[in-house]
């Protein structure tokens, strides 16, 4: 019985299958680590990563972050460069505006911003637990009828006196 398959990629090493879901909540930070073979002059690139949803035509980014990725002088052969970027999980605000809403199966990708073709993506690996935004929306849903009732009641009272 084959219990697992692993890939060794020269310049990268053993590629661990990443399929485990991570559940995050607003206030958490997700660290996305990458390894990429690099050949060229010493230069600083930008590592970019985003959580969102893969659509048919594009990746709908919800949260993203950047970090510098210093690459060493390696004119002849490829050198593996390791880097990471931290994405802060920001919950959606009022009525789900801004931030990320609670939900399952968000997708994740990372790329070299200066060379966007160099990118990797893992789908359906991020779950977001109830965010502050939805709490606020729920609370607003409860408060609004009470406020409206408070506005209507005096009018009703005035009508009765007449």
């Amino acid at each position: 019985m084959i219990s697992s398959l692993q890939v060794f990629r020269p310049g990268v090493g053993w590629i661990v299958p990443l399929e485990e879901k991570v559940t995050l909540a607003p206030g958490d930070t997700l660290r996305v680590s990458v390894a990429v073979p690099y050949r060229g002059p010493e230069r600083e690139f930008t590592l970019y990563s985003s959580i969102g949803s893969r659509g048919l035509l594009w990746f709908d980014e919800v949260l993203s972050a950047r970090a510098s990725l210093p690459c060493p002088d390696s004119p002849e052969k490829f050198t593996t460069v390791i880097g990471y970027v931290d994405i802060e999980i920001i919950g959606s605000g009022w009525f789900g505006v801004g931030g990320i809403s609670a939900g399952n199966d968000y997708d994740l990708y990372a790329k070299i911003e200066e060379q966007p073709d160099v990118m990797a993506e893992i789908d359906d690996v991020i779950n977001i637990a109830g965010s502050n935004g939805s709490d606020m929306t729920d609370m607003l849903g409860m408060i609004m009828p009470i406020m409206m009732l408070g506005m209507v009641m005096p009018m009703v009272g005035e009508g009765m006196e007449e």
Partner: protein
Amino acid sequence: MGAVYLPSEFGMILLPLANVQVKAGDKLRITCRYTHRGKAESVPLYASIGSTGWTGFDEVLHASKTLSVPEDASWQAREAYVDIAITTSISAGLYDLYAKIGGTIPKVISPTLQDVVEVTEVGDSDFGEISITDYAKV
């Protein structure tokens, strides 16, 4: 009898003649040999890479530093250097070089050395396949 007034004077300034190859990210150190006599003073040493044209020297990169020259009773040969950072603002090609001591009105200026600095093309950056090796809450 009053003291003898000995103004600060600079004689010739010489640059190395050897051609050099540089690329973006390098630092080119230009060592100059000059002569001096007179009182101590601080003067700028300035060097530039560019191209000599019919309108003059078209500077592309330059650098300067302050030289503190001691008092020299007679002509003394001295040496100093200035580093020019080679940036991506200079294209590949052959360039000329000159140096001078002094500010806007130089006290001494070197002959322009033709085609002594060769800026080579910086190889393109090349990435292999990027892998997300881990993602975890921290």
